[in-house]
């Protein structure tokens, strides 16, 4: 699964998986797979939130 996803993309994927699960048409294997994938997306989202390091940089005019 791509670690290059942005927060928004990962969130979208997470919602897709959630919707799939809630629709309840998945086989057990697919459902468990969807849960695993959704967890990865959830993790990516959480990581993205924490990834930024608060800093301020001033770029004076050249």
């Amino acid at each position, binding site marked *: 699964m791509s670690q290059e996803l*942005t*927060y*928004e993309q990962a*969130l979208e994927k*997470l*919602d897709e*998986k*959630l919707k799939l*699960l*809630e629709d*309840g048409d*998945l086989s*057990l294997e697919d*459902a*468990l797979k969807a*849960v695993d994938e*959704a*967890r990865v997306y*959830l993790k990516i*989202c*959480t990581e*993205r*939130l*924490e*990834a*930024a*390091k*608060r*800093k*301020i*940089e*001033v*770029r*004076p*005019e*050249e």
Partner: protein
Amino acid sequence: MIRPEEAPRPFTVTELANEIRRELRPLTAVLLKGEVTGMKRGAAGHFNFTIQDGLSKLEAVLFADAARRVTTLPEDGQVFVFRGRIDFFGKTGRLSFIVDQVEFDDVGKLRARLEELKRRLEAEGAFAPSRKRKLPYIPKAVALLTSPTGAVIHDLQQTIWDRFPNMSVVVYPVQVQGAAAPASISRALRRCNEESLADVVVIARGGGSFEEMFAFNNEVIARAILASRLPVVTALGHTSDRTVADMVADAECRTPTEAGARVVPKKADLLIQLTERGRRLERERDRRLAREVERLQARRERLLQVLPSLMRTRMERLVRARADLARLSPVQQVARRAEALRERGRRLDAAAAARLARSLSTLTSRRAEERLERALTARFGAATRALDHRRQRLIALSPESVLSRGYSITQDGATGAVLRSASDTAAGRKLRIRLAAGRVGASVDEVEP
């Protein structure tokens, strides 16, 4: 003015030049209206041009630091109201108007030009919502293009960090007012895109009058915003007029606070949303598993129900199969056939023997009957005759015929021996006497030998 007769000696040129400068000093903060011609940019960042009114002309200079401050740079053929002072340069012997502010002479005309620019940009589709770049959901960093001094930068940082405490901010100090602002902002925008330290740009200033904001109506800034790869958000303060920069920007905000809220989501909200999704995920998983357990349980119960009969039929089939197998096994088949053959052989033998015996006996009995019949037929008369003869002889010879003549036969009662002599018996013995008709039992009284 110094009158020549009062001078004890002649002025040197420098002295007179200095005198002229001193005399001209009261002519400061002069407002001068005129048309610009011969606009030239000097190497030191200053501008030289001529201000004229058709009858007279004055040389003018706009020094570099004033050029950065002025609302707009003079353009050839345009009429402006200049504020400045008169100075005399001894070195060149020229009198110049030193400009420190340039005002539009005719705001109405300026607005007309602005409308023309807007129409042009509109026709290009520069304002079309479809052209606008999407702001990142969560930027990796926010670039701030603003004056490094002032409250704007503080307000923006505060808003951003209140919402997203670990968000990075990259500040590009720019001039947000005056003639130098368009070039300054355009340069900074280009750098933002080149350096890619941030993925969204906020151009901010603290509002101002039409003239103060005029830099943001400059086509140079509009083009720079349009050319930006990164989405640009304007936050130019509370003004009644939308600037061209606002119109081409990807998002338009009034205050720095609004812009901060626009470019950065509230982290706490996102965390709540994520937690909620996490809970939904667990719930869905649990629900799915519970359903599966239920389904399994139902199947197990059904299985338990059908298992006994299933086993029974299976067992029966197994037994049948074993019997079939035994029956169908070649050894068994051969053995069985051999036995069947033997059995048939035995039955054949028995049948044959029986049949033979029957034939034989039939044959034998038939022959005997024939002979007997023949013998009987042949011999019947003779036999009858012989029989008669013998019967006669028997009658004649039978003791019983003697008995009829009055004789009797005495026998010992115990032994049955015929007594022929008195000595054959003794007194007291029992006798049996056979008569022609019947018998008599008697006892011996005496014997006379």
